[in-house]
């Protein structure tokens, strides 16, 4: 495969960013939007071509004779050379998950580009201020995200990881005159940066002991009992085997160095993927424009953490502890976020917590994946869910965007009864809800069912726990659905239009994504993605028992939601009054933000930073100041010597000369 197309996939968005960023002001709003969309459309075609070529061409570079999918490096350019082996390269890496991500990112990104043409203007069709800047940032984000998934080594991934963080920051703070948006962007940046500190340390530890950044070398780690994990070029210096034996051996505080490195790297993933306790930035990130939430904070960037763990999965397999940590963090987060999502009023916040919960599903799925269960079903399930979730969650967010655009408020209390006014939005949103709730035959059913099967294989506790979360998912999504589209509609004030479906640029992406959500479940995903590249037919492992239980749970939850929320009634109110504490805790997100505020403001700022600032201002600055003051005083003292009286100088000179002469004479005698 030639390098032209992969280079173009990265170069076009980058060019669009620079071009729209520099020349955007000079062109009309619409032209900038169309150029950005066309650029992304081109990338979409190229990425589809690349992915299809990878999966279907049967090229021996991509697939072995036994039918295993291989890792393939399209190009790899040395960028920094530390030692003979420790090299940072920039390249383009193709394997099943990166090809899958190429498809996901370009699809969603293109939909969002198209959608924003309609969304980023007001009801009279006037474009918002900074429209060109918006498209420039979208292109920057697409570039960084594509660079992240095709990284050939962990350091390249880190570079693009930071770039997506930066573009997320820019887009959350897009309405930079709005205080809440500015503080949300700062929060997102600082929290993820804090997590990335762990990521960086993890990378350094890992590379220090293994001496390599390359994914190919890192993931070719031989696991006992597994014949050929990834087929790699073993010409890499000093066969990696020895490297891993040495890196797993040194112990530090009761765990091997490799475990520490993996946990630290996972910390970076926790920050990006909003796992507890680093989840607090994601709900606030909803301050950004809704298409941005759909693209970055639902479908692509936030799954980077899952992608990272999946990328290094063979390493995680070596250290059981790290996978257990992934599972536990994921399970707790999934339940927490689902609880909170049940008690939010802002529809985007509900979707945000639902995103957190679903990403946690993927994490759990990775955490419970073991090669001995169904050829690592969890890994495939996680990637499958990533794929389907990206589609239906983007659909839900874009639907929410259409609602917000029509109503002008984020709260469901301002909506109600919209199914008559906005049929397209209603039906697509319903499909999204059914998909996420896991109703057959929508895509979420298949992926979630696979995750639950993987959990069931691993431990009954995890299975029950995650099934409960799946039930909650169905409940809160249908609660949201009924509150938006059912109930009695509000009176339309005099002189206002009734809310209506939006322009085709906004409806078309909804319809396309809804169609994908209907059929994506039937993709034989196991044929394409599996943890070691060997294709398998997951329908062979399809457990109808698990499937019917999860279906039953989802249906029961939906029925419960229907009873409680289909019409305005007193049930929710009664429920709320019966358990006021539960409602309060869920509504206030279990007071995590307040806890963070307490820790940062009360303890860190007041307790540590203030004394340090005092020390700096008074002790350190004071020492320097006193030197200056002393010098100043001394010069004030001797200044009058320069009196400007020439004859005074002569006197002083003569006296000095005489004194010197006298001393010399005295010395000579």
């Amino acid at each position, binding site marked *: 495969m030639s390098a032209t197309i992969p280079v173009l996939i990265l170069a076009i968005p980058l060019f669009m960013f620079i071009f729209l960023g520099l020349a955007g002001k000079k062109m009309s709003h619409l032209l900038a939007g169309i150029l950005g969309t066309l650029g992304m459309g081109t990338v979409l075609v190229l990425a589809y071509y690349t992915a299809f070529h990878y999966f279907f061409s049967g090229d021996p570079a991509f697939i072995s004779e036994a039918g295993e999918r291989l890792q393939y490096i399209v190009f790899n350019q040395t960028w920094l050379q530390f030692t003979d082996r420790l090299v940072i390269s920039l390249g383009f890496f193709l394997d099943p998950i990166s090809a899958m991500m190429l498809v996901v990112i370009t699809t969603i990104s293109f939909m969002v580009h198209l959608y924003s043409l309609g969304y980023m203007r007001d009801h009279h069709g006037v474009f918002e201020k900074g429209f060109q800047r918006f498209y420039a940032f979208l292109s920057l984000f697409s570039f960084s995200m594509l660079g992240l998934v095709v990284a050939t080594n962990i350091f390249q991934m880190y570079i693009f990881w930071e770039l997506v963080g930066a573009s997320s920051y820019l887009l959350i703070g897009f309405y930079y005159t709005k205080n809440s948006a500015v503080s949300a962007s700062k929060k997102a940046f600082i929290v993820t940066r804090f997590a990335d500190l762990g990521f960086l340390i993890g990378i350094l530890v890992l590379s220090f002991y293994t001496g390599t950044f390359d994914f190919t070398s890192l993931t070719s780690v031989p696991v006992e009992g597994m014949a050929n994990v990834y087929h790699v070029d073993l010409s890499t210096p000093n066969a990696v085997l020895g490297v891993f034996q040495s890196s797993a051996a040194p112990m530090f505080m009761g765990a091997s160095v490799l475990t520490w490195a993996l946990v630290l790297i996972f910390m970076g993933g926790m920050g990006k993927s909003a796992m507890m306790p680093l989840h607090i930035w994601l709900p606030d990130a909803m301050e950004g424009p809704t298409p941005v939430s759909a693209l970055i904070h639902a479908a692509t960037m936030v799954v980077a953490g899952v992608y990272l763990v999946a990328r290094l999965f063979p390493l995680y397999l070596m250290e059981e502890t790290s996978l257990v940590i992934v599972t536990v963090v994921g399970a707790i987060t999934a339940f927490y976020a689902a609880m909170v999502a049940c008690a939010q009023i802002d529809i985007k916040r509900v979707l945000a917590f639902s995103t957190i919960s679903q990403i946690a599903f993927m994490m759990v799925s990775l955490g419970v994946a073991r090669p001995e269960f169904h050829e690592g079903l969890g890994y495939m399930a996680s990637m499958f869910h990533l794929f389907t979730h990206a589609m239906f969650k983007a659909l839900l967010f874009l639907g929410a965007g259409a609602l917000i655009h029509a109503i002008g408020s984020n709260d469901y209390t301002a909506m109600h009864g919209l199914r008559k006014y906005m049929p397209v939005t209603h039906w697509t949103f319903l499909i999204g809800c059914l998909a996420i709730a896991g109703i057959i035959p929508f895509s979420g059913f298949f992926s979630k069912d696979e995750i639950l099967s993987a959990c069931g294989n691993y431990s009954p506790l995890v299975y029950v726990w995650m099934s409960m979360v799946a039930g909650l998912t169905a409940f809160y999504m249908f609660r949201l659905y009924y509150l938006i589209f059912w109930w009695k509609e509000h009176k339309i004030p005099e002189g206002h239009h009734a809310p209506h479906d939006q322009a085709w640029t906004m409806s078309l992406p909804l319809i396309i994504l809804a169609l994908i959500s209907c059929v994506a479940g039937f993709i034989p995903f196991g044929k394409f993605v599996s943890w070691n590249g060997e294709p398998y037919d997951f329908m062979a492992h399809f457990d109808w028992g698990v499937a019917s239980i999860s279906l039953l749970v989802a249906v029961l939850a939906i029925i419960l939601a229907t009873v409680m929320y289909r019409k305005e009634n007193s049930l929710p109110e009664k429920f709320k009054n019966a358990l006021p504490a539960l409602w309060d805790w869920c509504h206030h997100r279990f007071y995590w933000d307040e806890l963070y505020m307490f820790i940062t403001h009360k303890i860190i700022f007041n307790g540590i930073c203030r004394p340090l600032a005092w020390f700096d201002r008074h002790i350190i600055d004071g020492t320097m100041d006193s030197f200056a003051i002393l010098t100043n005083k001394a010069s004030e003292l001797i200044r009058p010597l320069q009196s*400007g009286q020439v004859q005074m100088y002569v006197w002083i000179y003569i006296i000095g000369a005489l004194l010197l002469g006298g001393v010399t004479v005295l010395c000579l005698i």
Partner: protein
Amino acid sequence: MEIKAIYYLIPSLIMFCCGLYGFLTRRNMIAMLISLELMLNAVDMNFVIFNRFLFPEQLEGMMFTLFAIAIAAAETAVAIAIIINVYRSVNQVDVRTLNQMKF
């Protein structure tokens, strides 16, 4: 009667002290310049005297004096030019009041 070096040196010393006294006490810059010339001439005389009495077969002292006279002439020209310019700008040449260049 033999003429000793001291007979020349004492007038030279008196000239020098007069010049020094004038330089320290006169307020007028031109008078100070004259005093300065006086000191310079005293020093020139010393050169000639010592040359004559210590190394009569050599001429360095004489030559040095000639140089010093030439340089003194040039220096006087510069000094006078400065004094004239000062006078033009502030209308007086009293050194005690010309102290703007302090600090």
